[in-house]
């Protein structure tokens, strides 16, 4: 049996993962170095990569801060009734079940130019949908559970005894957090950050709906790939896709490393 399963596993990986990756690599070079360089040095490509980078930074920071606090509350807080905690816990996973397009639609429905809130904000001069803030909100929505789902199990596992000991000994809560809790959850947080970054870079459906995909304004790297393919400009799409794929592979290596460190603790 062993003789059969191992080659079969290898061939599935080869067909499903390795060959497609290699194809992106060769596809980007099909017009030589110049084709690749031209694809990336287009102003819209540079702008799209910049947008993706900015969204990733903003979303990762917000998601990390709120993710850490929310998981602390959901695991530790005594001011939340147990039933409510369970309810919040299951609501937390909903963004995973929502199609990204629907996620985007929700934001357009609530904050779009035709809604009361959207019109109000528009009068003040803030546009959310078809602009940067909307794209950030959409990405926050899709990445919301990632950080919390990484930290909560760690918090549950370490228990409260060390933290209680620290506060009985008179440590302030901030001090307890940094000295006792943080070292324990650190690798979980790093792993969550890597997952969040990967999802931010790759987010497509929600951002496409919310951004309107306006070239040189709200276009991100993934929506640029989409537009290039729609315009039959496959080599250009390949160039941008290669950059994204390379970053993803890098993040995957980082994930492996963080996972190993996490297991040590």
């Amino acid at each position, binding site marked *: 049996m062993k003789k059969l399963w191992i080659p079969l596993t290898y061939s599935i*990986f080869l067909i499903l993962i390795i060959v497609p990756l290699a194809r992106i690599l060769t596809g980007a070079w099909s017009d030589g170095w110049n084709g690749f360089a031209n694809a990336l040095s287009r102003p819209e490509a540079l702008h799209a990569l910049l947008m993706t980078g900015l969204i990733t930074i903003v979303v990762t920071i917000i998601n990390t801060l*709120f993710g850490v606090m929310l998981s602390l509350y959901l695991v530790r807080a005594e001011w939340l009734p147990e039933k409510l905690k369970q309810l919040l816990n299951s609501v937390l996973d909903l963004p995973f079940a929502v199609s990204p397009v629907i996620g985007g639609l929700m934001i357009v429905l609530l904050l779009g130019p035709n809604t009361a809130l959207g019109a109000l904000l528009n009068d003040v001069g803030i546009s959310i949908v078809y602009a940067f803030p909307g794209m950030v909100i959409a990405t926050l929505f899709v990445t919301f559970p990632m950080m919390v789902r990484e930290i909560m199990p760690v918090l549950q596992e370490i228990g409260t005894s060390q933290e209680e000991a620290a506060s009985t000994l008179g440590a302030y809560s901030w001090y307890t957090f940094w000295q006792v809790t943080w070292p324990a959850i650190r690798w979980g947080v790093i792993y969550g950050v890597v997952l969040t970054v990967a999802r931010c870079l790759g987010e497509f459906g929600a951002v496409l709906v919310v951004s309107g995909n306006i070239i040189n304004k709200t276009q991100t790297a993934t929506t640029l*790939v*989409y537009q290039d*393919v729609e315009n039959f400009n496959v080599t250009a799409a390949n160039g941008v*896709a290669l950059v994204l794929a390379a970053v*993803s592979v890098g993040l995957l290596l980082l994930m492996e490393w963080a996972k190993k460190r996490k297991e040590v603790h």
Partner: protein
Amino acid sequence: MNFMFRSRWWSFGFRSTVMLYFLLLVVIPIIGIYTQSFSLGWKPFYESVSDPLAWKAVLLTVKLAFIAAVINILIGTMIGWTLNRYKFAGRRLLNSLVDLPFALPTAVGGLMILLLLGPNSFVGNIADKLGFQIVFHEPAIVVAMIFVTFPFVIRAVQPLLEEMDKSEEEAAYTMGASKTKTFLQIIFPSMLPGVLSGGMLAFSRALAEFGAVVLVAGNIPGKTLIASVFIYGEIESDNSQGAAAVSIILLTFSFIILWIVSRVQARRSSK
């Protein structure tokens, strides 16, 4: 005293901010979409849902996502098993590659499939000569769904295989059971919860998939238009009520699946 008072206010502020954020970002939008789809009353809701194009898109999505989930269950169970039970060169590399479809942007995944199977590609040409088409037809959608949901079953099966008590398996062998019989009667039942919950997660993810599919599906209404692309089209043509109506069918479906999975997992952890 003054310090305590201040710190209490601080923590109260933190708590309310975090909970408000949670409420505004996740709960309100979901409530919003349900109310929006009924915003014009029952009749328009019924009309948008009973539109044949909408129905066909939802049915097609369910059908293809189901096929993709079944294929994923088969190959996922096999790969999870092979990666955990056999030692061979490159095992660790393969194990880390499992997560690649999660890390890779879905639009890039779609582009990959388009390049590999599309017109002018090696596989595309062969299929063309044999008289069937892949890209812009159903097979490509299934391939895209399999690709993006590839890690689910494997990652759900692996921890179960690791936890498994080897003594039962060994006992079965000692008592003279064949390998196949041991697998079917001892090993497979303990893998089953992982296979099922992984398969259901893969199914719900495949239902929701947009990025990879939109590039390879061709999106011909009534034929290769799946639900999420249909919703996107409705949004683009400014019919937000129709988009919301189809969305909540898809959403309700996913929520039920998610609920079942969490029940299965809760039962396992309480054992």
